[in-house]
């Protein structure tokens, strides 16, 4: 019964985008209202469908009545349920920060809703070509949103992102082409069967795996394919950085997880161990290099962006190791990272609004002036480092546990080392905020020296940062419940 409403997850934000454009013609406040309304509906829908999928097992629907494998199938299993709910909730929450912070406008809200449509589509589709289409919808909306800051810098970053993103999606498409040539099907469940029949050592299958992984790894910003990402995150409007840092690469990483386990299946890794080893190696290098680059940054938004390179490395390492604990850890870290990084970008945006501070040095003494904002973002940073009981700890713990159980000790060492590096850059920021004497820009705000800046953080931004910190802590505690809910899904994925 519930599955008949599944296509609404994509259709609601898509139609909402049109509605935003239509109301934009009539009134200037219309699009913001429409976006809030549509994403509210989307959140309810996602929670309802996701909850049903977690409780009853996977739901699927054949779009337009064309049965799989010929038609396009939409599938929600436990894993996609988590991602769909994450997308809906985070985009709805971030919207509060947008109305406060950015000029907005009709085009902005329409793109915002299109982005949500693309991300939801990527999460629920059961067809590899359909995934490509949603990947490009997501991409187009993201490029436009990055450029919506209106500065020359943001246009350059968006163009760079566009060139990288298009090549990545094209490589993915080429991989899909190889799989199509090998099997003649595009449905994920069907591909799993057909690829096994063709044989995992077939050059066509190996090539398709290679192209698909490189394409999605670029979208998820693994080293050395990450170079678009710090510019895009750094130069986008603050609310957009929060949104895309939380969701866009997250859903790309989810797509990688989905393809590796639903399409290629663990049997592929067993047949071609070099594929697994290569993925583990690239991800491990990402973890280390991302952290090292983050330590070297002086600008806060860029530091957070490089930190993402390292965190997605952790997620992919979990995916590649492929024991139940490691895959569960990857999912937890994916969700946790989205919430923590989204919250930190909102905090960075709020600080920039308040004081104009954008570099680590300028953050000096911030917590004296804004104790609540400083405290909440410090909690988020420590959660990111992996201080228990926060969700950052839970994710890393399960991935490390999976690595140790699988006998890949070097990975556990890398995870531990990267935690120290993460501590290095976040501890520096926390030290600046709480211990160092106030910097000139904070001083100016304290003395009321510059009238451009508000004297208190906006209530909405504050609520978002505190909310993210609270969710990060609660999720860390509730992780065993999540494990119970996700266990059947992960067992099914890994037993194929």
């Amino acid at each position, binding site marked *: 019964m519930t599955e008949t409403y599944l296509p609404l997850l994509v259709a609601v934000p898509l139609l909402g985008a049109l509605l935003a454009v239509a109301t934009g013609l009539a009134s200037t406040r219309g699009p913001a209202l429409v976006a809030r309304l549509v994403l509210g509906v989307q959140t309810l829908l996602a929670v309802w469908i996701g909850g049903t999928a977690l409780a009853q097992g996977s739901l699927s629907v054949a779009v337009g009545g064309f049965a799989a494998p010929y038609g396009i199938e939409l599938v929600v299993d436990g894993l996609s349920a988590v991602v769909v709910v994450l997308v809906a909730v985070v985009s709805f929450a971030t919207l509060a920060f947008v109305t406060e912070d950015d000029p907005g406008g009709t085009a902005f809200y329409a793109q915002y809703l299109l982005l949500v449509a693309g991300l939801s589509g990527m999460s629920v589709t059961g067809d590899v070509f359909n995934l490509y289409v949603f990947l*490009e919808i997501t991409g187009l909306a993201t*490029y436009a949103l990055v450029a919506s800051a209106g500065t020359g810098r943001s246009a350059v970053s968006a163009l760079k992102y*566009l060139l990288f993103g298009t090549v990545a999606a094209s490589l993915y498409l080429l991989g899909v082409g190889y799989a199509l040539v090998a099997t003649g099907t595009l449905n994920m469940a069907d591909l799993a069967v057909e690829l096994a029949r063709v044989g995992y050592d077939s050059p066509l299958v190996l090539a398709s795996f290679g192209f698909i992984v490189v394409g999605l790894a670029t979208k998820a910003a693994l080293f050395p394919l990450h170079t678009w990402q710090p510019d895009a995150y750094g130069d986008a409007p603050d609310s957009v950085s929060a949104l895309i840092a939380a969701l866009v690469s997250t859903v790309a990483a989810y797509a990688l997880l989905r393809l590796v386990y639903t399409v290629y299946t663990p049997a592929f890794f067993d047949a071609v161990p070099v594929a697994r080893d290569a993925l583990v190696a690239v991800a491990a290098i990402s973890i280390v290099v991302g952290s090292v680059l983050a330590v070297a940054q002086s600008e806060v938004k860029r530091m957070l962006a490089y930190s993402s390179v390292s965190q997605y490395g952790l997620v992919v390492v979990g995916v590649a190791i492929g024991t139940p604990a490691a895959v569960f850890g990857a999912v937890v870290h994916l969700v946790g990272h989205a919430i923590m990084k989204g919250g930190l970008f909102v905090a960075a945006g709020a600080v920039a609004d308040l004081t104009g501070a954008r570099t680590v040095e300028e953050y000096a003494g911030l917590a004296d002036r804004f104790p609540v904002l400083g405290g909440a973002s410090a909690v988020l940073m420590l959660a990111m480092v992996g201080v228990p009981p926060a969700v950052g700890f839970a994710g890393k713990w399960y991935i490390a546990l999976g690595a140790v159980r699988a006998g890949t000790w070097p990975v556990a060492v890398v995870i531990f080392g990267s935690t120290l590096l993460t501590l290095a850059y976040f501890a520096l920021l926390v030290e600046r905020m709480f211990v160092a004497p106030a910097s000139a820009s904070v001083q100016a705000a304290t003395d009321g020296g510059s009238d451009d800046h508000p004297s208190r953080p906006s209530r909405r931004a504050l609520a978002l940062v505190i909310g993210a910190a609270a969710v990060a802590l609660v999720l860390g505690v509730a992780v065993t419940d999540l494990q119970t809910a996700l266990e059947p899904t992960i067992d099914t994925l890994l037993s194929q």
Partner: protein
Amino acid sequence: MIELLTTKYTYLTVVVLLAIGAYVMIESDNFVKKIIGMNIFQTGIFVFFISAAYRAGGRSPVVRSGGGGGPFVSPLPHVLILTAIVVGVSLTAVALGLVVRIYESYGTINEDTLEEVRAND
């Protein structure tokens, strides 16, 4: 070698197009040329799909009433590529829009000049 050229020439075209597209994107300093390179790269992939759909002696997949009349060329990749072309056109439009914005802000569409302009800021 000759046999490869005469029977698999569409796949060789794919390789050549992908190589030219990637080379132009990496090597050119001009943003518009980079976008042209991106288009050539994508076209290479389109040709790959269309080549894969080909069947020796295949006809266009229009089944007469009563069936029969095969073998047919596979229609699926053609449909997929129609979608991919639309996506490619949209991407090109957005990219060119961004180039216009860059030109308005910096007065150049050359990557190296842009670096210099930014360094002077």
